[in-house]
């Protein structure tokens, strides 16, 4: 059940209305039942996996808290990690690992191994597994107490708005709110309005922008053998926007849906393409994951407390793992590696940059300097996205080669760009939608407010007008349903 499906449009209001009216003591149970139903809509058998992860981390956390010995605690935690990561590895990485082993075996003329399993990746497994493991580490560190109430813990792992695509919540934030469910009224008109606006905004990002720009991106990447510099650069930039609007839109719906029900989830995106450096980008992009890796991988590895070389090593490990978390392919690893290299190079070249700035007397407190930083950062992230989007490393290298070796500025003028999935009209709609996105992100960047908060501080007429415009934009210009051009075959005479 995707957030932009009709099923969810029915499911969510029904769940919310019942949640609002039932007695407080039943609310947690109701949300848990709804969450499991939501998850089982993809595949009922997936529920076993989430239940397994829930029970293992629940038991491990209780054991970690109860056991006195430090080593025993550690082993219990390692056991919890191994069980969860084992499941994750099997479902997400087994085939990838086997493919690579077979490549090696092939190279040395050994017989390859047949995959005995037909594995289908369970939706959201990386998200809820990391959320549960984060909780286990928190209990191990003593940052939070082990949850006694299994029902509440199960809801923490499976809370449906953030179950399949995050944000990956922290135990402190979400547990506090789950504990309050049975004690006080959580829903409020203001929060419901803000949440509803966020949901509309998420749908707009996903259905009007992401799914429309995807037509261009798919066309450019699908013809990467034939494209030149301009198409390649635009394709990479377009994919940067696509993935932001796709994932950011989904996160906005998740955060909005939770907010309607009175839950405050952590922000996941904060105007990421206004970032002035790669470090800044990672403070604004997929915040719940980047902070997870920071807190549970980078800092335990030593963070920046050791030598510079060690710090760089820690950074590279963190980003490589982050890349691998996104998908079981070398392209994701390459994407992670590039970001690691950006961070390392950014830090290592800081003195050189400073000297250049001093030598040329560049003013750093002006708009033009920040704009340059923003554009450079966007360029670097867009370049890295090529590897994220490419179907294989070979295709990624082909794309990069064409990006740098086929200078063809005339395509900006001969209208051939309109043959890449978006005609003039669709491109116009996309540009208008991007202008709206830019404005909303600018407000987010300058004022620190998301659209829900910004609109709720405005007058009712303006707020309603924007909300209605969002709804109409989504139902008219959203990419969904049966996409046909009726003029081609409808208006013939008979």
């Amino acid at each position: 059940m995707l957030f932009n499906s009709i099923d969810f449009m029915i499911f969510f209001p029904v769940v919310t209305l019942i949640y609002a009216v039932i007695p407080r003591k039943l609310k947690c149970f109701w949300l848990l039942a709804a969450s499991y139903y939501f998850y089982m809509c993809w595949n009922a058998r997936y529920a076993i996996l989430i239940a397994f992860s829930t029970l293992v981390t629940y038991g491990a956390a209780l054991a970690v808290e109860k056991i006195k010995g430090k080593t025993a605690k550690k082993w219990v935690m390692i056991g919890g990690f191994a069980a969860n990561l084992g499941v994750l590895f099997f479902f997400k990485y087994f085939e990838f690992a086997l493919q690579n082993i077979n490549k090696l075996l092939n190279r040395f003329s050994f017989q390859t191994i047949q995959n005995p399993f037909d594995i289908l990746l369970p939706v959201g497994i990386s998200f809820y597994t990391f959320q549960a493991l984060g909780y286990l580490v928190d209990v191990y560190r003593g940052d939070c107490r082990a949850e006694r109430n299994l029902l509440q813990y199960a809801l923490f792992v499976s809370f449906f708005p953030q179950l399949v695509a995050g944000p990956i919540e922290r135990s402190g934030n979400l547990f506090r709110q789950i504990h309050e469910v049975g004690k006080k009224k959580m829903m409020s008109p203001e929060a419901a309005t803000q949440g509803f606006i966020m949901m509309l905004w998420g749908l707009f990002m996903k259905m009007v922008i992401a799914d429309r720009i995807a037509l261009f991106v798919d066309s450019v990447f699908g013809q990467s053998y034939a494209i030149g510099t301009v198409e390649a650069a635009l394709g990479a930039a377009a994919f940067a926007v696509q993935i932001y609007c796709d994932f950011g839109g989904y996160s906005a719906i998740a955060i909005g849906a939770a907010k309607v029900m009175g839950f405050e989830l952590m922000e996941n995106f904060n105007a990421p393409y206004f970032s002035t450096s790669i470090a800044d980008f990672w403070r604004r992009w997929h915040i719940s994951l980047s902070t997870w890796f920071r807190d549970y991988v980078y800092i335990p590895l030593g963070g920046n407390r050791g030598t510079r070389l060690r710090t760089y090593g820690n950074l590279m490990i963190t980003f490589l793992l982050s890349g691998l978390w996104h998908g079981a392919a070398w392209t994701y690893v390459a994407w992670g590696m590039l970001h690691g290299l950006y961070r390392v190079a950014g830090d290592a070249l800081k003195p050189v940059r400073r000297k250049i700035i001093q030598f040329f007397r560049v003013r750093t407190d002006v708009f033009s300097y920040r704009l340059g930083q923003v554009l450079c950062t966007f360029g670097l992230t867009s370049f890295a996205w090529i590897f994220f989007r490419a179907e294989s490393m070979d295709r990624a290298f082909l794309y990069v080669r064409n990006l740098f070796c086929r200078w063809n500025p005339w395509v900006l003028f001969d209208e051939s760009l309109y043959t890449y999935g978006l005609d003039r009209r669709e491109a116009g709609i996309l540009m208008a939608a991007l202008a709206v996105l830019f404005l909303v992100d600018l407000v987010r960047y300058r004022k620190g407010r998301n659209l829900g908060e910004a609109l709720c501080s405005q007058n009712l007429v303006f707020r309603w007008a924007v909300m209605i415009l969002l709804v109409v934009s989504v139902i008219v210009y959203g990419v969904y349903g049966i996409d046909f051009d009726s003029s081609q075959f409808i208006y013939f005479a008979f």
Partner: protein
Amino acid sequence: MKKSALFFVKCICFFSLLGLVVFVVYDVLKWKDTTGDYLSSVEQLYATEDDLIDVVFVGSSHCYCGVYPSVLWQQYGIAAFDMSVSSQDKNSSFHDLVELYKTQSPSVIFVDLHALTYDQHLVEANVYRNYLSLRTSPNSVALVNAYIDQEERGSFYLRFPIIHTRYRELKKYDFLQYPPNTFGRGESYISEKLGTSWADSAALNDRTVGELSDLNRQWLLDLIELAEEHGTAIEFMVLPYARSPFQQEIFNAAQEVLNELQYSYTDFNQLLDELGLDLANDYVDPEHMNAYGARKVSEYLGRTIAAEYDLPDHREDERYWQWDADCRWCENNGLSIWLSGVSNPVYYASGIKRYTDGITLVSLDGDYLDSETDYFEILKPLGMRYEEYLAGGKWIYRDGALEKIAENVMGAEEVYYDLGRYDTVKLTYVAPLSPENIMIGREPYQSASPLTFITYDAVLEKVVAQRAF
């Protein structure tokens, strides 16, 4: 007021407003066409006052191309309605009749049996066209359930998943009602001629009786039951067209079944000679008749209905204004097509006198006084005076009167004349016979000849003929 109560009231107001806006958007994007180019028999039905229709025809494009209610009205005052839609399938015709029965109590229904020859739509778009033009009701839901796969039904119920991409093709009549949909009676006016006979390519004399599938048999029984339920007589027919042996065998089988059940069945392919159908000139293609063929079939049907059913003549009844307007529309259509091809200016002038809804701009310019053609003789029947003729200029001919609206004087003030709600003619005098002398919208209309006729149809809201002599 308590905060939560206020919020509740606000929610109701917001969602009501949202519903209204979405409804308006739906009204623009929705399907408005069942027979081609915005013409919709379903819309025409909805525009009809309750309990006016006496005779109904259902069927596919064969039917709306081949049966003209205007002919039955003109000759007998029979209030007939052609509720056929493009590629109307079995489910669609049944549920269209159910829709019709909601407001009408016809005496007789004629069913064109072309739908017996297919179970699935050949063109997917026709499914949308036929299934999304009905207003949402239990009947439209039942129609969707009868034909559409379960997983796709949601899109049909909600409609937006299918119709929302129509934003790419919106035209004037998505925002305004297409005028003929307010008065049309279901026919589609076509005057083009096929030019060659289709007799050789058709199974005209095949009397082999094929097999009638259970689905087809059930459809016939359902229609009979529906008609009986409403106390309506029902007759079956197959309109004349080039059929394959396979199709003819199905119709022969249907004839056997209907004979057994004692229901009337007419195969018009067996009446080609009796009707005097000219297979080259009465058809637009081997499957569809044009206006000339339709007149012959409709006249035959009129005679039959008048003889078999005791139906009242409604021609004096004001409530039946739509049938009058429909006749006028058919006549205007015929005239406009004729005018656009006429090569004799005298004929053109006499044509525009008969064009009830026509507004004709007459331009007399250039060295017409030196010409061998006597333009005055052409324009005199329209009411032009000789002094006016000598001066030249621009006139409007409408409602039987000629009115001068501009002189041929360089530098004269521009003249604007509204032809319709959205069209204005601008008259200036840049130079003799300059194209920009007559502008309709942003298009120049002045021809290089001394006499120009431009005829605008006030109902169709467009220029329908332009001739220069």
